[in-house]
Structures are given as C-alpha cells and as structure tokens.
C-alpha cells in the first residue's frame, strides 16, 4: 500500500500547486496550464506504453503528434468544393497509383525470390517520386491556386472535431505500422535515431504538402467540442449563473450602473474560464478512461507478457512469444495514443501550425516527462506530464523572481540584468536538463517507480 500512498501525496502536491497558481496568478491561467498538463499526460502515457511497458525507444513522438493534428484538419474543416472539382480527380488518381505501387512492392517482397530484390524495391521507390510529381503536379497546382490566401487546399469532411481524435489515433497507428515494419528490428540506439529522422520526414511532408494541410500557411479557426465564449456571453443562462454565483459580491454594490458593468466584466472573464473548464473535463475524462484501460492492460496476461519481453527478450522468445509481432502491436498502440493526444492538442489550440513542430518541444520534452515521472508506471507517466509541463510554464516567472532577488542591488538599466531578463524563456531548458540529469542519477526509475505486480 505504500506505493499508493506515494501517488496520493504526489498528486495532492500538484493540486495544491494549481490552487496556488489560481489564487496568485489567475484561474484562467491555472486552467490553461491544467489542460496542457492533461494533454501532456496523455502523450506521456503513450510513450510510457512503448518505452515503459515494452522497452521500445521511440523518438518520433513529434511525427505522430503532427499526424494527429493533421487528422483534425482532415476531419473537421469543411471541404473546399472548388478545389475538389479542380484537382480532386488527379489526387484520387495518384492515391490509387500509390496504393498500387505499395501493393506491387508488397508482392515483390513476399512472392518473388530474387537476389537483388531489395535494390529493385528501392529503385521502384526512387522512380515513384518523379512519376508522382508528373501525375499529381497539375492538380496540386490547381488546388493550391484556388483562393490561395484563405484556402488553397482540399479541406476536410466537416465532421465534429471529437471524431478527429479517433481518426488521428487510427492514422498514427497506420503510420506506426509502416515505421515499425521498417525499423523495429534495429538495436535500441539505431531505433532512436531512425525514428527521430523519420519523424523529421513526416514533419516536412506536413509542412510542404500544401494541398493537404495548407502547410506553413496554417489552418486557423478549427471547430471546438465546447461552446464559444461569445455564444456564452450572449446566452440567457450563463449571465444568470454568474449573477447567482457572485450574488454576495454584486449585492454589496449599491449603484445599479456599476453593478451591471461589473456583471458584464464578470461574465466576460468567466466565460473564458468556463470554456477552459469544459475542455478540462473532457480531457480529464479521456485521461481517466485511458488510465483505467492501461492499468487493466498492465495487470492482464498481456501486460505480463510485455514485461517479460522487455526484461528478457530471449527468455520470452524461448517461451514461444512472437516478440517481433508484439513489438509491432505495442508500437502501434502507443503511437495511436500519441496521435490521439496530438489531435487533442490541436483542438485545444484551435489552429494547426505545422512549422511549430520541433523535436525539442514535441519529442524530447515528452520523453523527459516519462523518464522523470516513472517508466512503466501509468501514474508516474501522468505525474511526469503534470510536473514537467508545470515547470515548463512556471520556470519563467520563477527565473525572473530569482534574478530579481540575486541582482536586487543592481539597478534595472544594467546591461547584464537586462540581458538576463531577456533570456528568461531559456531557463526552462536548463531546468529540464538539470532535472533529467538529477533524476537519472539519483532516482533512475523516476519519481514514481514501477510497481512489481505479482498476480
């Protein structure tokens, strides 16, 4: 029971920290940190399933997040009919062509016994690229030239955005299947490098295939699963609710004009908080469902098998477990969760910016979360997501506070102090690095280490 006690203490501390932020900074800010903490926790659970459960090192987190983000665009944005009529045929044609070539490669790989078939496959792929350009080029140009400032892409399916989270997960799992087929046979450090590089390829595709994702032009104004602030302010029930909640404060103001003015202010500020709260509830639900499932999985025979494979691959093989297949499955499952989180992140931001995907923030930070929180322990991964994101956001105010104390007798115009204040955003990297190094040294299993489950 002692371990459970740890979990409770850790999460109580986090809750107290959030309350502090709510009181001293603002509740809206606290909720926005909380939402990103929840999303980060989902991401780190995905990585934890790969790394903690079965020891697969996946440095391609960024790529799967971007795929999830792309899914929100493909699912929720209304379709651009002119673009479809201008270049839809060409795109569909090239899609069929790609599928045919992949099938051909599959056939060559499976059926033909030929000494140099690997070279044959590579040369096929090399030939494919100019051919693709030849087939799809004119239609891509046609699509991208339609109303380039506002659309210039095919658009999506105009479905509710929550649906896209699942699509993101499925897409990410499919991509993970391909990557897994290519890379999973490699040794750990090669796997790390190759997944990192492949995620780089995915990002450059998302960034530059403008007909699909608008690329660097970004997609803004995505749908939301929760009400908009402006609708709340114009609704009937919401101002009443706020009036009811703040009745004691409002009734103390005698002047009627001042009272209505204050009420409008309150409604405007609390509509933002309310929207964030709705997001928090949805994200928390997702996290809880995920937690229940992965705790169940961890305790099931399947989880035992995964740990066996992780701890002694040869022994697991000798027991007749298909290690390669299990690895592929878990790589797909973990990536699907990461894709899900990526779609959630884009939904929360309300915009899809392919150029913002950078390995430091979207791959290595997630890894720090998992390693700091505790590999192989779901609660640890969640705690890591919370702690790391909290530090990531709050390290800038903290650094400012520290600089002001340390340099309190230096006047504000001093160039050294100005320089330090300007470079405050970078102290978060320092904190992350030092935190990771210290944890790896003194608590190598993370803050909440893996529990040995004996069943």
């Amino acid at each position: 029971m002692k371990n459970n006690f740890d979990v409770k203490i850790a999460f109580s501390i986090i809750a107290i920290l959030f309350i502090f932020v709510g009181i001293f900074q603002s509740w809206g800010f606290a909720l926005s940190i909380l939402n990103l903490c929840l999303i980060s926790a989902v991401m780190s659970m995905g990585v934890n399933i790969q790394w903690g459960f079965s020891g697969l090192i996946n440095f391609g987190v960024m790529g799967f997040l971007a795929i999830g983000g792309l899914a929100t665009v493909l699912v929720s944005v209304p379709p651009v009919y002119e673009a479809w009529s201008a270049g839809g045929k060409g795109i569909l044609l090239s899609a069929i062509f790609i599928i045919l070539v992949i099938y051909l490669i599959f056939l060559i790989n499976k059926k033909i016994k030929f000494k140099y078939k690997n070279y044959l496959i590579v040369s096929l792929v090399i030939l494919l690229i100019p051919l693709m350009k030849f087939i799809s080029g004119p239609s891509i140009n046609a699509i991208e030239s339609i109303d380039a400032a506002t659309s210039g892409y095919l658009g999506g399916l105009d479905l509710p955005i929550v649906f896209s989270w699942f699509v993101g997960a499925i897409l990410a799992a499919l991509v993970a299947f391909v990557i897994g087929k290519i890379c999973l046979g490699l040794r750990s450090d090669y796997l790390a490098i190759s997944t990192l590089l492949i995620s780089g390829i995915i990002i450059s595709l998302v960034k530059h295939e403008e007909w699909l994702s608008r690329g660097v032009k970004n997609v803004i104004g995505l749908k939301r699963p929760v009400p908009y602030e402006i609708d709340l302010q114009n609704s009937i029930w919401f101002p009443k609710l706020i009036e009811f909640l703040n009745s004691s404060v409002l009734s103390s103001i005698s002047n009627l004009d001042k009272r209505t003015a204050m009420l409008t202010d309150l409604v405007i500020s609390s509509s933002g908080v309310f929207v964030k709260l709705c997001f928090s509830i949805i994200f928390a639900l997702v996290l809880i469902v995920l937690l229940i499932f992965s705790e169940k999985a961890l305790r099931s025979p399947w989880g035992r098998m995964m740990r066996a494979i992780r701890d002694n691959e040869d022994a697991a093989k000798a027991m007749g477990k298909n290690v390669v297949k299990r690895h592929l499955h878990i790589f797909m499952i973990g990536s699907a969760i990461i894709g899900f989180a990526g779609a959630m992140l884009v939904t929360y931001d309300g915009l899809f910016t392919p150029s913002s995907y950078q390995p430091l923030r979207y791959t290595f930070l997630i890894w720090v979360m998992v390693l700091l929180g505790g590999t192989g322990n779901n609660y640890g991964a969640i705690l890591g997501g919370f702690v790391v994101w909290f530090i990531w956001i709050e390290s800038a105010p903290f650094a400012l506070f520290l600089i002001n104390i340390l340099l309190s007798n230096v006047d504000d115009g001093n160039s050294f102090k100005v320089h330090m204040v300007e470079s405050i955003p970078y102290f978060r990297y320092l904190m992350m690095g030092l935190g990771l190094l210290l944890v790896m040294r003194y608590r190598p299993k993370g803050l909440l280490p893996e529990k040995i489950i004996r069943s």
Partner: protein
Amino acid sequence: MDFINSIVLLTNFIFVPALTYGSQLALGAIGVTLIYGVLRFANFAYGDLMAFSTMLVILFTWYLQSKGISLGILPTAILAIPIGIIGTIFINLFFDKTVFEYYRNKKSSPVTFIVVSLGIMFVLNAIVRIIIGPNDINFMDGERFIIKANEFKKITGLDEGLAIKSTQFITLIITIITCSVLFYFLNKTKTGKSMRAYSNNEDLALLSGIDPSKIIFLTWVIVSILATIAGTLYGLDKSFKPFTYFNNLLPIFAATIVGGIGNPLGAFYGGFVIAFSEIGLTYAYKKFFVYILPEYLEPNSLVQYISTDYKFAISFAILVVVLLYKPNGIFKGKIL
C-alpha cells in the same frame, strides 16, 4: 562552349556547395563516430556542443575585433578557434566527470547514455541561448569572395559565372588539414593505435595495458577539436543560429550511420554522400539541359528530382535505406 558552360554551372551550384557542406558534415560525423566508437553511445548533445563551441569562438572573435586585431583577408574567427577548443574541452571533461563517468562505471545500457545525453543537450541548449541569444549571428569578416561570378565571366568570357566564397575555400583547406592529421594520428601513432584497439575490443585493450582514462580523455579532446572546427566553419559559411545547429545533428547522424557508425573514414565519406545527394537531388537541372541539349529537346519543366523543401528529408531517407539493407553502413562500421 555550351559544354564548358554547363560544367561551370554544375560546379558553381552543386559541386562547390556540396563539397563545403560535406566537409562540415564530415567533421561533425567523425566526432559523433569517435564518441560512439570509444565511449559507445550516440551523443544527442553533439549539435548543441557544436553550438556551444561556436559561441565561444564568436565571443572571442568579438573580443579580438574590439581590440582591433584581425587577420586581414581571412576571418578573425580562425584566430579564436583555439580558445573555443580549450573551452569545449573543459565543458566536455566536466560533463564526462560529473555525468558520463558514473554510468560508464555502472556499465549502463546504451539507452541510459542516450537519455543522459538528452539531459546535457537541454543544458547546453539553455546555456547557449542564455549567453548569446537565439538569433542569427553573422561573425564572418575579411574578404567574402575569392572569385566573383562577374570577374569569372570577364576572365574566361563564358556566359556562366563561377563564384567561390572564401569561406568555402577555408572550409576545404581546414578540413583537409584536420582530417589528414587525424587519420595520421589514428593510423600511425602509438596512442592512436591504442585508441583504435580500445574501440575494437575493450577487454583485450585493457589486458594489453592500455589506460582507459587516457583514451577517454583523448577522445574528448579530439571530439572537442572537431566540434569546434566544424561548428565554426558552418557558422562562417552560413551563419550562427543555435536552432540550426541543433537541426544539423540529424544530417550528421545520417552521415555517421551511412558511413558505418564507429568508423571515422566511413563518417568522412558519409558526410559527402549526404551532402552531394541533398544538393544534387534538389537542384533544378533545367539550365544545365538547356546548355547541353539541342534546342528541340529542351525541357520546359524544372527537371528537379524533388523540391528543395525536402532537403533534409533526403538525408533521412538515405539513412532509412541504409539501415534497412546495410545496417553496418556502406563502409562497415563498428571498428574504429
């Protein structure tokens, strides 16, 4: 005449830039490969290590410039390289003592080393950004061009110009010198041989009385020299920006693995393989074909294999192909 023009065109836009970029990658890749060969881990902090050493060079260059010291037509940064090297050696040895040594003695798995190098990557990233900021810095001074396109046209009377930047020339010269010294050291001297022996088989090397702490010290020194030179040359040729240096880690890794990880000569060639394919495949050959083909065969498209947006993706794709079919690299890795 058209034929010479087309050759000059390719030299100007593919051969010279690729040779420069390839040398920079090669120097970086040799560093990564040495760390992998001797210390047995993939150092993810290498890109930021290059940024750190270049930052030191820039700071000292600024100091020299403020004192009015310069090398005339050569960039002042060359004078500052030794200082950068010394600083980088210090920080490397510091991280080795405080971080890596512990895990080496514990004989941790390669993954632990990778994770720890991620920690160092974050720390170096922060240090560089805090000290010098995240912005583009151009610290090139002295003569910019050895030969300008216009002058070349005037001298030779050709339609096509050939411009060679002095940084490109300096990069080549310094790379040749550094690599010859390095390979002489590794192949001919006793210390270099003991380093290779240690990399090849640690236990046997220990048995024959090779001092591991000396080898490790030496490796960090060589790595610091290579990182500083590679970083400074890249910064002189393009410009210094911490984020680009971090991104350069990826093609450097690609070059290392393509050449066979742990094999310095392979890494050297790997750098050029990556550079030539990146630049060669993204170049639009239209003008080239206009020169050499008869008029009725002239192409009307750009004749570009893949758009320049995918420059990085090419090196990654090469890497994936190599990993699939020749995981030891083209030049057989694993042996220093």
